[in-house]
């Protein structure tokens, strides 16, 4: 055999050895903790195989853009006051505009137009001019700023979710953005699915607001709410969005409550600890948020001194503490509502000014264990910080662990039988050459698995099918080559020449076929999520290894086979 051949063989042996090392821990069920085998990486199983929770969350930008525009409007007012630029009014308009582009309308004295224009142009890169009429500017957020807000909101959301999950304790969670407004969360092997969902979905926006008992006493507020409900035939039913119900009530209450006030509810639990859909306590609150959870320093679970129920205690940072101190000082004997995600948790009366910035959140009645869990989770979300936007569950998929096991068993069996059928067929049809093809296909599978482990890619159920399919497709390359060799033989060529010509002439066809396969696989990789992505990955890896095994491995073995024929002085090749 030539030097060249031995070099190629060494390369092949190296690849095979490497793949075996990569695949061994997975196939042998190696106990990585105890074993002294140097390589411990196992194949990554997808959620559909090992069980777990997969979620797609939509980030709701509506509120984010609304808040940003409101803030920009008031900052503009402050800025104009500071620069002593006179103006008549600053308003935000949203009606008839896309959600992410509310406008600010500034009305001013026409004579001051240039001064104001310069001020805005100079100090507000965040704003753009949409429209101008005499004495009136219409402004919108600039494009760059909107992109910036979107990016920041997405990144923050992912960050906050990650922090929460880290505290929850899931091994190898994956949190990633998808497109411009989605977050994909994958939690392998998670058991408490509902709890994980609550933990992730909670906005956890903590606010402190003063209860406006001076305008209406609690009885009057309750009366107003029940009147609105009756007049408009509006009732909250279980399973509906509570926030939508609250928003509707506030819309209808407009004019009946003082301006910049709002109605909020405390939800009442039944004895079992579930929220009672038919009971709630209404509050009239000043809309102004006095202190927010942004100024929270820490939150922990603790126990109520009187009834030993779990509560969540929190402490504020110095800035929050001084604001808290000021508010409580100004509103002694009034009630302070602790509002979490727009739901009132409690509204104690401020007895004296509270300095130091410590407080507590009570959770109401409920069964001990469940209440404890809830307190823990609340402390986690408060510590991890609020989500910058509300998240909606767009997709969620849960796979139980036993189903995954069952899927693996069936998938592997089906793939094995499929591959075996191909091997048997090709060995029957092409005899010795068929054995060569089967060998290279077997190595092909080994390479696919090795690369999967090496790249730390994820094997999913469709991915297992993808490996079987790779064999079905890879054998095509062998067939194309062999049929070509047969043709060359029929033309009267000697085995040596026929094999050379066969490999050479078939190469182009094989390349073309695999490139179009790869094109479809890449589209799948981009479009697909979760299990489908796993399929695309195995297909792509399979295409690369197929090219290698059909062209390189088979040829290598063929060269050796031709040599054997030569030695026997024979002119026939078994194909």
């Amino acid at each position, binding site marked *: 055999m030539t030097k060249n051949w031995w070099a190629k063989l060494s390369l092949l042996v190296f690849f095979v050895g490497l793949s075996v090392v990569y695949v061994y821990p997975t196939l042998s069920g190696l106990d990585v903790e105890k074993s002294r085998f140097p390589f411990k990486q196992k194949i990554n199983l997808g959620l559909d195989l090992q069980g777990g929770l997969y979620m797609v969350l939509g980030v709701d930008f509506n509120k984010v853009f609304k808040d940003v525009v409101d803030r920009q409007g008031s900052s503009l007012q402050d800025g104009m006051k500071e620069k002593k630029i006179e103006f008549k009014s600053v308003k935000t308009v949203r009606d008839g505009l896309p959600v992410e582009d509310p406008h600010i309308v500034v009305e001013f004295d026409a004579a001051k137009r240039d001064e104001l224009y310069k001020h805005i142009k100079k100090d507000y890169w965040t704003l753009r001019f949409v429209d101008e009429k005499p004495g009136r500017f219409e402004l919108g957020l600039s494009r760059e700023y909107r992109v910036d807000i979107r990016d920041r909101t997405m990144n923050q959301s992912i960050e906050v979710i990650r922090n929460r999950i880290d505290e929850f304790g899931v091994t190898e969670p994956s949190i990633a953005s998808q497109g411009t407004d989605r977050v994909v969360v994958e939690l392998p092997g998670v058991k408490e699915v509902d709890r994980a969902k609550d933990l992730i979905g909670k906005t956890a926006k903590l606010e402190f607001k003063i209860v406006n008992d001076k305008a209406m006493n609690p009885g009057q507020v309750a009366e107003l709410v029940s009147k609105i409900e009756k007049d408009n035939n509006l009732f909250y039913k279980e399973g*509906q969005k509570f926030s939508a119900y609250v928003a509707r009530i506030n819309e209808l209450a407009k004019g009946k409550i003082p301006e910049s006030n709002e109605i909020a509810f405390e939800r009442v639990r039944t004895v079992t600890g579930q929220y009672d859909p038919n009971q709630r306590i209404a509050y009239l609150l000043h809309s102004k948020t006095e202190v927010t959870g942004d100024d929270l320093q820490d939150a922990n679970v603790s126990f109520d001194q009187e009834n030993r129920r779990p509560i969540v205690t929190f402490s504020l940072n110095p800035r929050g503490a001084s604001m808290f101190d000021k508010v409580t000082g100004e509103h002694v004997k009034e009630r302070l509502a602790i509002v979490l995600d727009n739901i009132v948790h409690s509204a104690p009366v401020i007895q004296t000014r509270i300095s130091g910035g410590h407080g507590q959140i009570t959770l109401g009645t409920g069964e001990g264990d469940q209440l404890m869990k809830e307190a823990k989770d609340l402390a986690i979300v408060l510590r991890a910080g609020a989500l910058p936007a509300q998240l909606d569950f767009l*997709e969620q*998929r849960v*796979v139980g662990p036993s189903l995954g096991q*069952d899927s693996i068993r069936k998938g592997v069996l089906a*793939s094995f039988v499929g591959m075996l059928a191909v091997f048997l067929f090709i060995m029957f049809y092409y005899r010795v050459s068929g054995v060569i093809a089967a060998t290279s296909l077997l190595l092909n599978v080994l390479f696919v698995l090795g690369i999967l482990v090496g790249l730390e890619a994820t094997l999913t159920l469709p991915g297992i099918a993808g490996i079987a399919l790779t064999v079905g497709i890879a054998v095509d390359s062998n067939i194309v080559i062999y049929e070509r060799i047969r043709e060359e033989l029929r033309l009267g060529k000697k085995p040596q020449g026929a094999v050379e010509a066969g490999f050479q002439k078939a190469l*182009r066809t094989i390349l073309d076929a695999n490139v179009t396969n790869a094109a479809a696989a890449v*589209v799948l990789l981009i479009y697909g999520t979760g299990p489908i992505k796993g399929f695309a990955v195995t297909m792509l890896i399979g295409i690369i290894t197929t090219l290698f095994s059909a062209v390189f491995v088979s040829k290598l073995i063929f060269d050796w086979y031709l040599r054997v024929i030569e030695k026997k002085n024979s002119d026939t090749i078994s194909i």
Partner: protein
Amino acid sequence: MFQFIRPDIKVDFVGKRHFFVAVSVIALAASIVLFFTKGLNYGIDFTGGAEVQIQVPHAWDIGKVRAELTTAGIKGLKVQEIGLAGEGAGAQSAVRQFLVKAQGDAGSLNQTSSTVEQVLLKTLKKGEYEIQRVDVVGPAAGSSLRMSGFLSMLYALICILIYVTIRFDFRYSPGAVIALFHDAVITLGIFIITQKQFDLQVLAAILALIGYSNNDTIIVYDRVRETTQQHPEMTIEQIVNKAINETLARTILTSLTTFFTVFALWLLGGGVIRDFAFTLMVGLVVGTYSSVFIASTIVISLTHFYKKREARQKLAGAKA
């Protein structure tokens, strides 16, 4: 040398092409009409909805499951039995598996799995039942998945069109892409007729099919091009017919071996893999047919078309 198909086979495929084109046009038209009238039976991936797979004791038959769940007031409730396990191993260990489907708005869909669990907990203890799988897709997410799904098929076709155009030329690429379009649409048509559920796995299979189905076409095309260079004196009809006959063995063999694996997956794979493999089986058959009868036929027509245009241009050039 063992062979199914004799190497000197000479079937007049090209002569019969009008018949096969007619068959394909009818099948295509029927599929498209069905697509817009009857429509695909979309799974929750594309319509939104909830699906909960449960395993309950053998005593719970479909009537009982349905009756129990109806009391919970699940919207758009559908129950489907999908499997029996452990039968014969004593009635104690025997279980049944059901798929519970629900429709509704995003809020109520999210509750489906806990509602089902509450119903089961009323009479069963933990451990006697199992919630094996939950899929919830919001209505908005469903329609966006559907849109991007069809777009992805389009992108795959465009990629292949570009590649075949670069590797061959304009006489070949339309035939390859029309054949692929033909395969995808007729496979969809079969899904409409059988009303089998069309979900993400099926879509993935169709995309894989678009990639794979092109292989046979390329084998024929390569041979057509080679023969054109070797025998410039032959007409395009003769060339194509010769190419199809010469490559017939490998076209059938390659499809057959792939069919083996796909058939095994369909027979033994269970659940998700089963639907996936079914799609590929249908597609393989349609794809092999179109490689032989459709893709090459279009090459013949386009060759004539370009020749005529060339002749016209020459004529115009001579006059000028």
